[in-house]
């Protein structure tokens, strides 16, 4: 799915009046089948951008087009049809307590199911093999019948990813899919996700805090800061300087709070961004 955002402003309905917009003039264009990583400091607006792309946060200004149509201009039915084509995987997967893994994963297929089938599936999971197929590459095949609230943090997160894999959509908006995973599983999960997207021709936008993985695995990286795009480059052109500028602390964060008394000596020089 081709997605285009022009001069997009957005704010959370519950934001305080004096708070700045979460997105302040974002322009972004993602081609069908492309994979883009979204990086940026905490509070930069990554989640908000994904929500704007996912039709979960309306724009206050600017324009969003999907395959050429403006979804927000559609009627309710059209908007819903459009939503069926995409999937947002939130930062912490909001899984209802007591649900079983199989149900949580299959929920990704709901838009394709009729009412009867969704009802029946609550009693006896239909398409359980599909859920199994989505969990297996993430190393969770043996948790298929467990309850989600009895999983470890990383297991829960992978259940969220399995829902993405099980779904049948054209645009995946994945929010920090690796935050609770150990390095090996993070790497593997990312590979699974990218490979699946490539194979099915799905457009993938993922926000990441693992800068190294992002630069390595994604062809294109977008740096977001203060609700605006700071750079949008092929991974190879993202220099350490750009990264430093992207993640630099706000002045008030640095100065506002007084100099930390005996803060650990300015840190053994900022941890270089390589592993081990």
């Amino acid at each position, binding site marked *: 799915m081709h997605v285009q955002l022009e001069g997009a402003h957005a704010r959370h309905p519950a934001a305080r009046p004096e708070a700045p917009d979460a997105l302040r003039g974002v322009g972004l264009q993602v081609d069908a089948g492309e994979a883009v990583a979204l990086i940026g400091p905490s509070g930069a607006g990554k989640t908000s951008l994904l929500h704007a792309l996912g039709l979960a946060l309306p724009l206050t200004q600017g324009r969003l087009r999907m395959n050429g149509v403006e979804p927000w201009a559609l009627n309710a039915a059209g908007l819903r049809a459009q939503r069926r084509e995409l999937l947002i995987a939130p930062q912490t997967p909001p899984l209802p307590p007591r649900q079983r893994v199989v149900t949580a994963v299959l929920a990704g297929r709901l838009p394709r199911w009729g009412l009867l089938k969704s009802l029946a599936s609550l009693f006896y999971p239909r398409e359980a093999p599909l859920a199994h197929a989505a969990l297996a590459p993430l190393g969770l095949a043996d948790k298929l019948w467990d309850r989600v609230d009895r999983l470890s943090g990383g297991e829960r997160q992978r259940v969220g990813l399995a829902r993405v894999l099980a*779904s049948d959509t054209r645009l995946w908006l994945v929010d920090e899919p690796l935050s609770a995973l150990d390095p090996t599983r993070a790497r593997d999960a990312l590979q699974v996700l990218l490979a699946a997207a490539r194979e099915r021709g799905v457009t993938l936008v993922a926000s990441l805090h693992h800068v190294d993985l992002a630069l390595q695995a994604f062809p294109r990286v977008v740096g977001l800061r203060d609700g605006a795009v700071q750079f949008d480059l092929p991974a190879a052109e993202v220099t350490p300087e750009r990264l430093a500028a992207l993640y630099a602390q706000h002045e008030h964060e640095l100065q506002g709070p007084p100099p*930390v008394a005996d803060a650990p000596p300015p840190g053994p020089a900022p941890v270089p961004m390589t592993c081990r």
Partner: protein
Amino acid sequence: MRHPQLGGAGLRRRRRPGPGHGQQHEDVQRRRSGHHAARLHGPGGPGRPREPLVAGGLGVKPSVKPVLPPPLFNARCKACWFTLAVLALVVASFWSLDLQWAGLFSAEGARAMGRFVAEFWPPDTHAAFLAKLGPAMWETLAMSAVGTALAAAAGLALALPAAAQGGARAVARTGLNALRAVPELVWAALLLIAAGLGPMAGTLALAVHTSGVLGRLFAEALENAPTGPADALRAQGATRVQVFLYATLPTVLPQLLSYTLYRWENNIRAAAVLGVVGAGGLGQLLAFHLGLFHMGKTASILVAMLILVALVDGLSDRLRRWMAR
């Protein structure tokens, strides 16, 4: 509410570079918060510079006082007015009723009450009476269980539109209000005419009134539920019913179940109302024997009710524990 010093312009203005500026603003802020602190905590209160236990413990010099929240009254104004209104209503109620507490706390009063309670002992356990009690218990159980089950289904069907946005909401809410504004007794009288004496009229009376009650409680539980899981599915284009089945229902299920079981319990007791429609059950027995001052028999009936209620209470506790595991 506005926090002049925080979150908004104040901070962003301070972001301007230059050491001179930074210093200056820090001073401004210290003065401002000092002012606040003095007003809110009084001199020497928490707003004063403190020894390093707190801040110093963090490795932070207390050079900057945090900005304090807006004055108490402003911040909680809505709550204040509401609390005041409730208090006024309560005071007015007690005042206008002219209640007689005096006798209640006297030894004589306690003795009089005690004598009455003592009359309930011993409960009547004659076989003949127990043989009457058993079927009555069963009838009560049946009427209340079936009535509640019907009501839970109808209540849920009404609660969905009542908790949703849009035009159906107002209609559903009005319907629910009407269903429960009419007391069970009136429903009983109406259904008595339509269905004749007997448990059917009683069951339906319970069901109709209870569906209004459960509908309202369900609707509010649905509205109060955390929306995260539902939002995720909705953003994905799932239909309303699907969102309900796969996200909202599992979240609120314990709440819905506990309301339903609680209402069942209530209906066991409400069966007293149903004696009037000749529906029988424990309610009619109780009214009969209590009215005739058959204290022993009344005690047995009360025990029977207690057992039923405790059973349902235990069931609801069990279910919740099972679900929470």
